[in-house]
């Protein structure tokens, strides 16, 4: 009985969890809750501004999106007939007008992600390791490596579109001067276009990942390196046994955000290759934007978004799983040994 009262008084579910075997402590808790009760609305008030924004710009659109995806939704037309799962069905039926372009764009997104993520995990790490050393001009170089990241996607894309132009661009010109093939069509043929898109993206965003790595590196206690050195570990062994385990917590973070950023690639191919040749470099987001905003097929575009979302959620879950499984096991081992 008293438990129930206590429960009702408690403002949050949190206090319910401990098993209330001790009457005394239960009472105490009840009193505590009593003092808190005055501020019952306080947490919600603190949360309110964010909840308002989160609710109206994330939750509401997400729910509305599901609703839209069940209609033939052209927002300029008065009637938006309910079509059930038709939008999803046509995404999965070969021969429909959306099947080819959509799965082509998913493939493009896949290719880009697979090519760019490993590079964006490894190259910034190398840069960060270099930048964590002490040498003259280090701060200047750090700024240089981070500089491209402050530019907008439009700036870097237009810049590189002209630099990489196969006929009038500087890149091919200098390749020719070096005696290398100077007729690669960087923006109009595949696979060269993928090399260009991935290369530009790595150049553009590596600074961001490098900064996070750098912060991670500075968190690794110097004593661990000293201890490793005392144990006779060379630089490579130090890297494997001190640096990598020390970076593990941020590694999962970097992997997830890089994966999602790569899977959401849009601006580079929109501006550098216009999705070409044909629509080979047209990514999923590109296709969704095109269907929904340019051709007003909001229903179909919403359905595409949800298919993409399911893919991204599955991949994110996989990454979380991979990183979560390993840590406790290792820790246990360490404890045991």
């Amino acid at each position, binding site marked *: 009985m008293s438990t129930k009262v206590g429960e009702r008084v408690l403002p949050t579910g949190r206090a319910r969890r401990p098993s209330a075997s001790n009457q005394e402590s239960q009472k105490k808790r009840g009193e505590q809750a009593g003092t808190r009760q005055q501020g019952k609305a306080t947490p919600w008030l603190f949360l309110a501004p964010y909840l308002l924004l989160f609710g109206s710009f994330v939750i509401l659109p997400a729910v509305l999106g599901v609703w839209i995806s069940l209609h033939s939704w052209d927002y*300029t037309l008065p009637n938006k007939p309910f079509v059930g799962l038709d939008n999803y069905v046509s995404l999965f039926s070969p021969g429909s007008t959306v099947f080819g372009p959509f799965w082509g764009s998913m493939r493009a997104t896949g290719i880009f992600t697979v090519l760019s993520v490993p590079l964006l995990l490894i190259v910034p790490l190398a840069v960060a390791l270099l930048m964590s050393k002490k040498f003259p001009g280090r701060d200047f170089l750090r700024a240089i490596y981070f500089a491209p990241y402050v530019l907008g996607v439009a700036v870097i894309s237009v810049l590189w579109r002209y630099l990489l132009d196969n006929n009038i661009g500087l890149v091919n010109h200098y390749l020719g001067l070096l005696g290398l093939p100077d007729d690669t*069509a960087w923006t*109009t043929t595949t696979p060269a276009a993928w090399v260009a898109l991935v290369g530009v993206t790595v150049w553009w965003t590596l600074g961001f990942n490098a900064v996070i790595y750098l912060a991670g590196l500075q968190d690794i206690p110097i004593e661990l390196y000293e201890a490793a050195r005392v144990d006779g570990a060379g630089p490579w062994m130090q890297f494997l046994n001190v640096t990598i385990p020390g970076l593990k917590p941020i590694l999962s973070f970097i992997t997830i955000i890089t994966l999602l950023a790569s899977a959401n690639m849009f601006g580079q191919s929109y501006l550098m290759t216009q999705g*070409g040749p044909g629509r080979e470099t047209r990514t999923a987001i590109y296709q969704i934007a095109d269907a929904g*905003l*340019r051709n*007003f097929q909001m229903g179909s575009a919403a359905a595409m978004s949800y298919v993409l979302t399911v893919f991204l959620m599955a991949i994110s879950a996989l990454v979380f799983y991979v990183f979560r499984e390993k840590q406790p096991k290792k820790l246990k081992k360490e404890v045991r040994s």
Partner: protein
Amino acid sequence: MKQNDFLGRRVFGVTALGAALMLVLAGCSAGGTGQAAGEPFTGEYTGPEVELSYWNGFTGGDGPFMEKMVSDFNAEHDNIKVVSNTMQWTDFYQRLPAAVTAGEGPDVGVMHLDQLATNAARNVIIPIDDLADDLGLTANDFTEEVWDAGVYKDARYGIPLDVHSLAMYYNTEHFAAAGIEEAPTDAASLQDALGKLKAAGYETPFWMPTRWPSHLMNLSLLWQNDGEPYGDDGATFDSAAGVKALEWQRSIVDDGYSPGDVAIDSQYVAFKNGETSITWDGIWQINDLSESGLPYAVAPIPAIGETDAVWANSHNFFLPRQANADKNKVNASKVFIAWMSEQSAEWAGSGMIPARQSVRDAGALDGLPQEAIAETIDSMRFLPPIPGIGGVQAETLEIAVADGVQGTTSPSEALKKAAGTATKLMDDNKASFGD
């Protein structure tokens, strides 16, 4: 915690600011509504002072001319103030339906002829037959095709300001060096000129674009081959005429007159830099080329097929749908359109061709580079007024032409596949537009 608090306060501040802004905006729009119904349009506006929001996409060399015309109009009309909002055309066609649907559309605007039917079907723009009648505008003063293309389901939606077509630009220095005296006018003379240019050391005299304006070249050639891109039963750009057109485009690359895989805009940049001798582009580029100091001339595109034909488009004034239209604003907008139509001689300075015969006859084009193009106005072809055609074309013909010119797919195969998709999309459009 401290940080959260700070963040929270900041968000509150922003929200409050946003709310205040919205109130201000609401106040503005509320002020305009609920006016007395205006009299029928008389060509003059005598009501209270109004401010008109005017949307257009003149971001290129045509922009300054439009700005000048707007400020001239404002100077002449004490009680009307036109505020123009200029954005890229691609953004324009995305934003306009959204803005109008949200009740935040402009009071008046300009759009392309081939977009009128689409926006009429979407209920974004309203019929303006009365304005055409009141202005005394009739088909007689316009080319038939331009005038008729502004009509959708028996109602007129646009008042044409100009027509603009594809044209052939050539480098006069290169032509002189190669000993070519006259601009090529047909397939044989173009071939001859290309041969001479090559012999004179201009290795790639005619760069064939893969993207814009490649599909406009394709449409022009298709019409020259007596084909039609769209029929009653769907897309027909894969007809023999269309295939022949794309094969000719590809042959320019195969014959070595153009490098392969030309990226977007680079044929134009190359022409501007004197790297190539001939390029086909819209006449709206005239000012840009004149300012660049390049020794160039412009001529109608040669007749590669049997018939003289060239792709063209037209800028049209329209009135957007407004839930509670302020009659004063509507009348003032009509005055604006009427004035602009009459002053379209000045607009010729932007490189465009005034749509009105009377303006052209009065010598608006005398001495302007596009004068020669204007003479071919009867051979100009426009896309038919089919709702949604722009989106369909961008997804099908444009990509097929790119594939065909790049040689990744054979012209007939690329066009056939794209036409099949286009027909399906057009059927879908018919269903959703209730046609």
